């Protein structure tokens, strides 16, 4: 009994220190992000976007959309991309062995014609490229049809091999971009052409919003609490987390849903890792690894606005699957680049960002769950003071609430994309719900994903369950207000 008591007391102290370090780090990230986001919001109107749009030397962008069984959303996505405010872009859709009508829909919509296109082998592709099609009308659409290669990364690499513009933008087929998204995202490349190699955009939740012709017409709250909780998560992750890491020079993730890179740089580092299921994280980690080793000055940054609106899982089952996949990808990538972790030669990435991802993002779920178990056990055995335990839990709960509310407030003070007052009340409700039950469930999924990475289970890329949230509202039945 005494060793157990000692162990539980020691573990409690460990959890307390862990919580304090994490809280301090979150506080720092929140302050840094707030400065940057508010600054960006106020700069609207003097950032010269109109000039950028009109300038003939604004770099061209190849928008690469990997699509596997995306019949529900592919046309809305294509229409949205082609109607973006950007002077020179090409849309590359990679049909990764779809078994539904994905290709047929695009073929009919853009009068596709097969061409004998020379596909370079700049980056490796597993699934054989079967054909390349372009729009007979001259619309800058190019479709690559290939055999399913098992991962999303394989489809992205096929797109890289046919891309012709200076910048490549990776976009999910269920995502819709804000009208000015590319103009804003390309600005860091234009302002610092020698330094910036990657730019991540903010991703927001499309569920519940009204879309028309591939454009967002009305941001609205989804009906289910699972989706609303994800709105809070995304705001916290993108507005606070990534913006702050970008400011610190330790941005490790550019979301696969919306990210831009220099084509030449991505090809130089070998494109995406076709074996990875967290290809976005892996690519950024590899860029840091290679570019640091080359002693070159480079920057990977995040812009807080405008955004890509993407469909998020609407059911617990699909959300669990997504989060396990993310956790597994994170663990695998951290293991792959383990020599960078804690290595001062990799600067902020090595000594701050990667240790943070290892200690808090990867192992945090284990600490959270074992902490809860230890607390329950301690309470059952009478080892832990009930009042003290409740107070510690209340501090953790209120701190988590504060962080989420800070993200909401930052959104409100800066971009305020959700116009209805009821929406604000709903997101505040989601903040409460997130910390009661969902958070613990999420920790359990993360543990499962990490364990799957340790066991080395195989995983194939399958398109997540779609509801067509980002498709035109008229088609999906959502009223356009």
């Amino acid at each position, binding site marked *: 009994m005494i060793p157990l008591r000692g162990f539980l007391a020691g573990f409690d102290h460990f959890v307390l220190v862990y919580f304090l370090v994490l809280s301090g780090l979150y506080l720092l990230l929140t302050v840094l992000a707030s400065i940057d986001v508010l600054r960006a919001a106020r700069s609207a109107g*003097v950032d010269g976007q109109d000039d950028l749009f009109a300038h003939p030397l604004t770099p061209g962008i190849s928008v690469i959309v990997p699509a596997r069984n995306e019949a529900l959303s592919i046309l809305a996505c294509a229409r949205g991309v082609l109607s973006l405010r950007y002077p020179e872009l090409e849309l590359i859709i990679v049909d990764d062995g779809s078994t539904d009508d994905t290709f047929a829909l695009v073929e009919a919509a853009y009068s596709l014609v097969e061409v004998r*296109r020379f596909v370079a082998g700049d980056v490796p592709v597993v699934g054989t490229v079967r054909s390349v099609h*372009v*729009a007979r009308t001259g619309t800058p659409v190019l479709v690559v049809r290939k055999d399913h290669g098992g991962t999303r990364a394989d489809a992205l690499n096929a797109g890289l091999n046919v891309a012709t513009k200076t910048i490549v933008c990776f976009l999910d087929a269920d995502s819709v971009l804000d009208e000015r998204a590319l103009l804003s995202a390309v600005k860091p490349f234009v302002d610092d052409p020698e330094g910036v190699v990657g730019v991540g955009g903010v991703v927001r939740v499309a569920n519940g919003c009204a879309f028309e012709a591939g454009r967002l017409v009305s941001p609205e709250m989804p009906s289910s609490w699972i989706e609303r909780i994800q709105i809070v998560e995304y705001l916290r992750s993108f507005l606070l987390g990534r913006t702050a890491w970008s400011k610190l020079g330790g941005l490790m993730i550019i979301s696969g849903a919306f990210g831009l890179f220099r084509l030449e740089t991505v090809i130089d580092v070998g494109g995406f890792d076709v074996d990875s299921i967290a290809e976005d994280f892996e690519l950024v980690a590899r860029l840091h690894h290679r570019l640091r080793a080359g002693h070159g000055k480079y920057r990977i940054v995040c812009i807080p606005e405008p955004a890509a609106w993407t469909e998020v899982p609407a059911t617990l089952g699909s959300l669990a699957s997504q989060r396990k996949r993310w956790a597994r990808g994170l663990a695998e990538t951290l293991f792959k680049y383990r020599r960078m972790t804690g290595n001062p030669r990799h600067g902020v990435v090595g000594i701050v960002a990667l240790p943070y991802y290892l200690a808090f993002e990867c192992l945090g779920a284990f600490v959270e769950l074992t902490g809860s178990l230890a607390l329950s056990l301690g309470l059952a055995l009478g080892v832990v003071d009930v009042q003290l335990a409740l107070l510690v839990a209340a501090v953790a709960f209120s*701190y988590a609430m504060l962080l989420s509310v800070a993200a*909401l407030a930052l959104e409100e003070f800066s971009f305020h994309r959700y116009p209805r007052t009821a929406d604000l009340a709903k997101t505040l409700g989601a903040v409460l719900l997130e910390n009661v039950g969902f958070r613990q469930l999420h920790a359990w999924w993360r543990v499962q994903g990490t364990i799957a990475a340790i066991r080395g289970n195989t995983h194939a890329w399958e398109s997540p369950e779609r509801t067509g949230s980002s498709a035109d509202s008229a088609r999906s039945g959502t009223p356009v207000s």
Partner: protein
Amino acid sequence: MEIRHLLTVSVLVLTTLAVGLSVASTLVRAWRASAARRRDVQLTAIRPQVLEWLATVDPHNRQVLDPTARPGRSDARSVEELIGGLLPKLRGDDRAVLTTFLERTGALERARLRMYSRRRLVRARAATLVGAAAWRRGLPEVVWLLRDPDPEVRSAAARALGRMGAPDAIPYLLGAFEAPRHSISASVVGIALLHLGPASAPELIRTLRAAPAATRTLVAETLGLMGATQASNPLCHQLRTDTEAEPRTAAAHALGRIGGRDAVGPLVAALDRRQPPALRIAAAHALGSIGDPTAIDDLALTMTDPNHRVARAAARALAALGPGGRRSLEHATTVIELGRPSALEALDLSDRVRPMVAR
């Protein structure tokens, strides 16, 4: 006891902060909605008057009328805001009329003084207004802001100089571009130079000789975009003799845009495989743009380039060179060593697709 007390205080502080932020968010939302409504009401009342006045005023005698009979302070601000928004969309007499109006209301003088403000956005907005109005009296302040510590302000100042159409600002713009600290991006300076128009070409040509490599690159690109035919010879010289790859590539691009046949010789020489790939690609594109059939043989040879991007550029250029280019492509499809993949691709695009949407 102490730790319990500390934890209780922590819970109270954290909860108060969370509730405070929630309340603040709600209040900000309510205030913003109310302000937007007020502004909409004002602009809805004023916009028709301003537009009507703009449509009827005689620009030649510069009769500037006050669009509001007795404007209150907030009305006057709304009028200035509205006119400030219209200015970038106007040119010539219409812009001059609005500039005179803003001068008389004192808005431009206030903007000039605001360029000394401590707040970066106030400085940037003031420079933008002075630039949009092309108000020459604000030129010294705008030039001064080219050295501002804030990058957004420097960029706003550079854009303002371009809009003011002051060719005498070229040395300042290029100086700001070359500054080791607090420089301005090539894109912003390039746009400003383009706004200055063809009148600035002679000054730009002079800088081709002695400027640093990055400036030579920027100036060459700008001259090409201006279509400055008088720059053809200096650009050919730069293409042949420059010691750096980037200015040479920019010269090749510019010569393609200008379209003079005297550039064909230097461009063909730039197709040589010992030259950097980016230069070979630019030269091939330029030869396609110029459309001189004398380049056909050299472009056909370039289709066998080991770099597939160079080969593709050569094939696309041949497709743009009329029947001779097409014959060359068809011949190449028969022999793999002659660049068959690129030739097939170019022919397919030429036959099956209507002209691609291009800038």
